[in-house]
C-alpha cells in the first residue's frame, strides 16, 4: 500500500517536471528538444508501469543521467572535432560579413545624422532610439533598424548618469544598415557611417574602399594575397583536418607528442611511486608487535583527508622561488617550477604526497586478506624475507590490486588538478606558449579550448578524442590481463 502511494507520487512528480520543462521548449519552438523530452518521459512511465522489465527499473535512473551528461557530451565533442569552431569561427558567413562591415564604419562628409536616445530593454541590453532630421523615428540594435513612433513598449530611456556608466557599451554598439552602420557620437548624437570594407558577391570577397585591398573567402576566413586573414570568420566543416594536423603539422605535432610522452611518464611514475611508498608503509605497519601502530596509521593517512585542491596550491607555494618554504628552509634559491626537470620532479613528488595514503590504505586491506600461512610456509621452506615478499606477497597483492592500479593510472593520466593547480603546465619554452614542460594532454587541451590565446574548440575536441582513445586502449589492454575481466562472465 505504502509502495503504491510512493510510486504514484513519484510518477506524478515526473509528470509535473516534464510539463514544467516542456513550456520553455514550446515557447522557443524547439520541437526536436520537445520530442526528446516527451520520449524520455514516456520511457520513464513505461519502465515503471509495466510489470515486466525488472532490470530496467533499477538501471534507468542512473543511465538517464549517464546518457544526458556523459555520453551526449562525448558525441557532441566528436562532432565539433570535424569543424573549425572557435574564436573568430562561431557563426555563419553572413554573420561574419555583417561584423566586418560594421567594424569598418567611418564617418564621411555628408553622412546622415540622427538625434540619439539610448534605451534599454527588460533584459538590460541597450538599443538606440534614433530620430532623423525629417522627424522619423527608428529603433536600432545589433540586428538592424526598424521604424517606430516614440519609445516602444518594454523599453526605458537611460538617464545621463546611467548612460555615462555604460558608455563603453554605447560606443561599441553598431546598428547595421545597407551601406554601413549607425554608431553613436557622444550620447545624444549618432551618424550613419559608410563601411570601408564591403562584401562583394561577384568575387566572393571583401574589398576596402579607397585602397582597393581585397580579401577572398577561403576556408572559413577572408584572406588577402599576402595570406593575412580578417579576424571575423565563420564556421565550416573541415573534415579530418583537425586530426591529421596532429601528425602532419610540425608546429603542432612536436608539442603534442612531447606532451604525450611526458603524460605517460607522469601517469606511470605517479602510480609506481605512490604504490611503492604506500606498500612499504603498509608492510612496515603490518605486524601486531609494533607499538603505536594505530597512531602511525592515523597520522599517515592525514593527507588523504585534506582538500586536495588546496594542498596542491599549498605545494605550489612551498616551491615558490621567491618566498616559498622549501627555498627558505634549505637556504636555496632554486626556481623549482621554473625549469623543466625540476618542475617535473616537483609535480611527481606532490602527487606522491597526495596519493600514497590511498595506496597505503588499500594495500593494508589487501595484506589482511592474504592468509598468514602462505608467508609462513615460504619461511619454513627456507625463503629469506625478501624472497617471501618477492615470490609470495607481492604477486598476491598485485592480483588483488591490479584493477585499482589501472584505475589509478587512468585517473592520473588525466589528472588535471595535479598540473593546473601547481604549474599550470609551465614552464613554457620561449618559442611556444601553447605546451609547457609539465603539461598533460588534458591541460594542453583545456588551454586550447579556453586559453587566452583564443579558443580553438574544434582542434581541442579532436585532441580530446585522441585522449579518449589512448586511455581506453591502455586500460582495455591492462584489464584484459587481470582477474577483473573474468568476473564479468560469472
Amino acid at each position: 500500500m505504502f509502495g503504491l502511494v510512493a510510486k504514484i507520487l513519484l510518477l506524478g512528480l515526473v509528470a509535473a517536471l516534464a510539463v514544467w520543462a516542456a513550456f520553455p521548449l514550446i515557447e522557443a519552438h524547439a520541437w526536436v528538444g520537445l520530442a526528446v523530452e516527451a520520449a524520455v518521459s514516456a520511457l520513464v512511465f513505461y519502465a515503471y508501469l509495466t510489470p515486466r522489465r525488472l532490470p530496467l527499473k533499477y538501471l534507468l535512473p542512473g543511465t538517464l543521467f549517464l546518457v544526458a551528461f556523459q555520453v551526449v557530451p562525448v558525441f557532441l565533442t566528436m562532432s565539433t572535432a570535424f569543424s573549425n569552431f572557435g574564436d573568430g569561427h562561431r557563426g555563419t558567413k553572413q554573420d561574419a560579413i555583417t561584423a566586418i562591415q560594421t567594424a569598418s564604419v567611418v564617418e564621411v562628409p555628408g553622412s546622415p545624422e540622427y538625434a540619439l536616445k539610448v534605451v534599454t530593454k527588460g533584459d538590460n541590453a541597450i538599443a538606440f532610439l534614433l530620430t532623423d532630421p525629417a522627424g522619423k523615428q527608428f529603433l536600432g540594435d545589433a540586428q538592424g533598424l526598424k521604424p517606430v513612433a516614440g519609445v516602444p513598449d518594454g523599453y526605458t530611456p537611460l538617464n545621463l548618469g546611467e548612460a555615462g556608466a555604460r558608455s563603453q557599451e554605447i560606443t561599441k554598439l553598431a546598428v547595421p544598415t545597407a551601406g554601413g552602420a549607425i554608431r553613436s557620437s557622444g550620447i545624444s548624437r549618432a551618424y550613419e557611417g559608410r563601411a570601408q570594407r564591403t562584401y562583394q558577391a561577384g568575387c566572393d570577397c571583401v574589398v576596402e574602399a579607397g585602397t582597393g585591398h581585397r580579401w577572398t573567402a577561403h576556408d572559413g576566413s577572408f584572406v588577402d594575397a599576402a595570406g593575412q586573414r580578417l579576424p571575423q570568420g565563420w564556421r565550416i566543416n573541415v573534415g579530418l583536418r583537425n586530426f591529421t594536423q596532429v601528425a602532419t603539422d610540425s608546429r603542432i605535432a612536436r608539442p603534442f607528442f612531447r606532451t604525450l610522452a611526458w603524460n605517460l611518464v607522469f601517469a606511470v611514475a605517479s602510480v609506481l611511486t605512490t604504490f611503492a611508498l604506500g606498500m612499504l608503509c603498509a608492510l612496515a605497519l603490518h605486524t601486531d608487535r609494533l607499538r603505536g601502530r594505530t597512531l602511525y596509521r592515523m597520522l599517515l593517512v592525514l593527507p588523504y583527508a585534506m582538500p586536495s585542491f588546496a594542498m596542491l596550491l599549498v605545494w605550489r607555494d612551498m616551491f615558490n622561488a621567491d618566498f616559498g618554504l622549501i627555498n627558505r628552509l634549505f637556504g636555496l634559491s632554486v626556481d623549482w617550477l621554473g625549469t623543466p626537470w625540476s618542475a617535473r620532479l616537483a609535480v611527481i613528488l606532490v602527487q606522491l604526497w597526495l596519493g600514497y595514503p590511498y595506496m597505503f590504505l588499500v594495500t593494508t586491506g589487501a595484506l589482511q586478506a592474504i592468509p598468514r600461512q602462505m608467508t609462513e610456509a615460504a619461511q619454513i621452506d627456507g625463503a629469506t624475507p625478501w624472497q617471501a615478499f618477492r615470490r609470495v606477497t607481492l604477486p598476491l597483492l598485485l592480483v588483488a590490486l591490479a584493477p585499482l592500479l589501472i584505475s589509478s593510472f587512468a585517473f592520473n593520466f588525466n589528472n588535471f588538478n595535479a598540473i593546473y593547480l601547481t604549474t599550470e603546465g609551465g614552464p613554457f619554452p620561449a618559442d611556444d606558449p601553447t605546451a609547457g614542460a609539465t603539461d598533460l594532454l588534458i591541460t594542453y587541451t583545456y588551454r586550447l579550448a579556453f586559453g587566452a590565446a583564443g579558443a580553438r574548440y574544434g582542434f581541442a575536441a579532436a585532441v580530446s578524442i585522441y585522449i579518449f582513445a589512448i586511455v581506453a586502449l591502455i586500460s582495455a589492454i591492462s584489464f584484459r590481463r587481470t582477474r577483473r575481466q573474468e568476473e564479468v562472465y560469472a
Partner: protein
Amino acid sequence: MTGWFARIGWRHLVGVLAVLFSLFPIVFVVAAALNPLGTLSSTDAVPTAFTIDNFANLFARTAFGHWYANSILIAGVASVVAVFLSMLAAFAFSRMRFAGRRVGLLSLLLIQMFPQFLAVVAIYLMFARIGDYWPGLSFSSPWGLILLYLGGALGVNTWMMKGFLDTVPRELDESASVDGASHVQVFFQIVLPLVRPILAITALLVFIGTVNEFLLANVFLYEPNSKTLAVGLYGLIAEGVSRDQNFGMFCAGSLLTAVPTVVVFRFLQRFIVSGLTAGAVKG
C-alpha cells in the same frame, strides 16, 4: 640490536619518516593559518605565533560562508543521490541476469575511462543552450552542476558496490522473496541495510571528489556568491600580489574545508579499509 632492527626497528623508522613526510605540509598550513601577518613569505615551517585574524578576515572580506554552503550543498546532494543511483544499478547487475548485462558492465568501466571533463567544451555549449530554456539549471547555479556531476554517478562506484553485493549471500533475499516480499521490499529492507558500509565509503569518496572538483566548477560558477570552496579559494591566491598576501586566509579556509571530511573520516574509519578494497579483494 641488529636483530631488533631487522624485526621491529625498521618498521618504526619507516613509520616515523612517513609520518614526517605526511605531516610537514599540513603543519605548514596550520602555521600559515595562525600567522598574524598572513603572508606566505613570513610563514615558517612550524607555528610561531597565534592569531585568529585570518579566519575572521576570511568571513569578513570574502564570500567564504557562501562558498562553504555551496560546497556542502553540491557535494552533499551529489554524493547521496549518486550513491543511491549507483546502488540501484549495482543491485540489478549483481542479482539479475539480463541481456546486455555484460556489455553494460564493461561499458560503464569504459565510459569511466573518459573523464567527464574532457568533453568540457561540449558541456559548456550544452549548458549554454539549457540556460536559454531553463535559466535555473545553468551556469552559476548549484543545480546545474549537481545534474552534471550525477552524469558520473554510474561507474567505478557501481563496480565496487556490485563486488560488495556479490559477497552478500543471495539466500537472504531469496528467503525474503519466498516469504512474499516484492523486489522493492527486498531492495530497501534486506539489501540496503546489509550494504551500509560500502554505501558510507562510496558516499565519502564521492563527497571528497566533489568538494575537490575544480575544472567543471570553474567553468560553471562565475558569480562570486555561487562559487564552491575550490573555485573561491583558488581565486584568493590566483593573482601575483594576492598570492603572497592572502596566503594565511587561504590556509585558514583550507583547514575549515578539511573539517567535515576529517569528522566523517574519523567516524567511518572502521569501514574504510574493508570498504575501499571490497570491490577488489572480496569481489
